[in-house]
């Protein structure tokens, strides 16, 4: 299906390409394809872009690239096949659910009317799509969360959410790649390092990837944490 975006200026050097308010993985894949095509087109003056749920924000140099040319180029890519050149990958992420690792599991179970075990098996029984990264380096917005787990964000955000926290809010789930303030409900914690910026130029999850969570014991997590400290990172599988 051809995409028909609308364009909005974000000042003189960025353009918001808006594909509407609805989002799903197939629209996201099309946005990623446009973003990739734009990067590969080597159009002089395009600096970088941020793919998001239903938008693409393109940063450009207005002294090098007239806005009209940029829009024409984007519209051109929107008309063609929306295939991503980058192969999406799939990840299995070990999580210790509940206890000190998941301080909100009890409350989520209460508010959803599900047992804690049911919350865990719903959360871990679903494969999530990486829509976008934002908020923090390597913070991936994973969707769509099963309907029965959807809750608004906490009224009062926590000042400190620990690194590796696996949390949910609205229709998304995520892993906090580093300690930060946060308002999502924490179900568990993963020992996997989401992005060691001193070692790698890229985060573990890229937009377009798929993620599954796998419940593990404290002992298994401790082993993985030990390996991670020595530089170990999980191997992705090629997504179908």
């Amino acid at each position, binding site marked *: 299906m051809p995409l028909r975006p609308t364009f909005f200026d974000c000042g*003189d050097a960025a353009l918001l390409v808006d594909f509407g308010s609805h989002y799903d993985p197939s629209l996201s894949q099309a946005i990623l394809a446009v973003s990739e095509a734009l990067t590969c087109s080597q159009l002089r003056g395009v600096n970088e872009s941020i793919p998001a749920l239903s938008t693409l924000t393109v940063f450009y140099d207005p002294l090098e690239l007239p806005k009209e040319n940029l829009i024409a180029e984007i519209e051109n890519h929107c008309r063609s096949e929306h295939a991503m050149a980058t192969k999406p990958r799939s990840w299995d992420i070990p999580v210790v659910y509940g206890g000190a690792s998941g301080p909100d599991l009890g409350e989520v179970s209460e508010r959803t009317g599900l047992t804690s075990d049911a919350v865990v098996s719903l959360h871990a029984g679903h494969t999530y799509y990486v829509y976008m*990264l934002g908020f923090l380096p390597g913070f991936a917005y994973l969707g769509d969360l099963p309907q029965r787990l959807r809750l608004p964000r906490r009224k009062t955000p926590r000042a400190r959410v620990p690194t590796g926290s696996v949390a949910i809010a609205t229709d998304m789930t995520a892993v906090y790649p580093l300690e930060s303030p946060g308002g999502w409900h924490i179900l568990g914690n993963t020992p996997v390092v989401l992005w060691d910026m001193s070692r790698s130029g890229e985060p573990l999850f890229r937009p377009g990837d798929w993620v599954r969570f796998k419940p593990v014991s404290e002992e298994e997590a401790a082993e993985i944490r030990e390996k991670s400290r020595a530089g170990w990172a999980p191997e992705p599988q090629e997504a179908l």
Partner: protein
Amino acid sequence: MTASLRILDAGLAATIQDSGRRGLQRFGVPVSGALDHVSLRIANVIAGNPPYMAAIEIIGAGLVAEVEADSAVIAAAGMVSRFMVESGKSMHVVSGFRSFLARRGDILKIPPPKNGSVCYLAVEGGFDVAPVLGSRSTYRRAKIGGFQGRTLAKGDRLPLCQPAAAERPPVMLDVSLAAPEALRIMRGPNAGYFTPSAFETLLSSTYTVSPSSDRMGLRLQGPALERAIGGELPSQGTTEGGMQVPPDGLPIMLLADRQTTGGYPRIATVIGADIAAAGRLTAGIAIRFEEVTRDEAVGLLKAQQSWLASLPWLLKAAPADAVSVERLLSNNLIDGVTSAGEDNP
């Protein structure tokens, strides 16, 4: 012997910054970099550096540092009219926007930035800190870049790339910078989420910068901006200078350390040519907004870029009287240098 600049008083929130971390916003990495890229560039040009070499960004309070190199050419630019160099028993008063050849043991005393929040201290050859993801800019939340990924602290020894400076006459630039009274804006990408009168309110009111502002953004106090459509947007990319409006209706102007994505609608965007000026604002300063067209904004950006590119040709020999030697160390000029805890009015 390694050359370094030893921090004796780090002030409030001094960090190492360059032009920022570009190309990784899709992975959630903020751009960071200098709040006032114009002043950073000026300091570097005067110190004899490439325009965006990493320098010390000084915010809110002053900075005191000792030169632990045989010699070093330094320059301060931004909201600084002069600073002091204690050299043995004498005290030099050095104008901003001028180079100074400091010697081993000299103590640099940068006063709190005046009428604004920020100034830069550049050293010829730069600081020998490793780039992280392509930039030496400090991004505190992820503890990356700059000196150990954090704000500077007393006792830090910032390694310098150059152990000594070549003797040469001092140079200066005839510029003066001010905190802006008004910033020029364009209608924002989500302006349609607000009532038609909200944008008029923004243009006709005076806002005051709130003390809870930081390198991520300036919180503005003034009339609330009314929404026509409630709720949040699906998270989308943010841009520097974007003015996002949370539910309380008070705009937040996004600056260097802004998150790359957000769900608050943006009513306006500060134009590229005024981003550096916006970085000079600090708590308590009153600010107005003027609307310009995109064509005007691009014209202003072009003019600013060609002025910045011409700076190396505007350098001239600095007159000797730009440095005065004060014998009295009790001179009131040094007052306030270490008043790190006090708010800048």
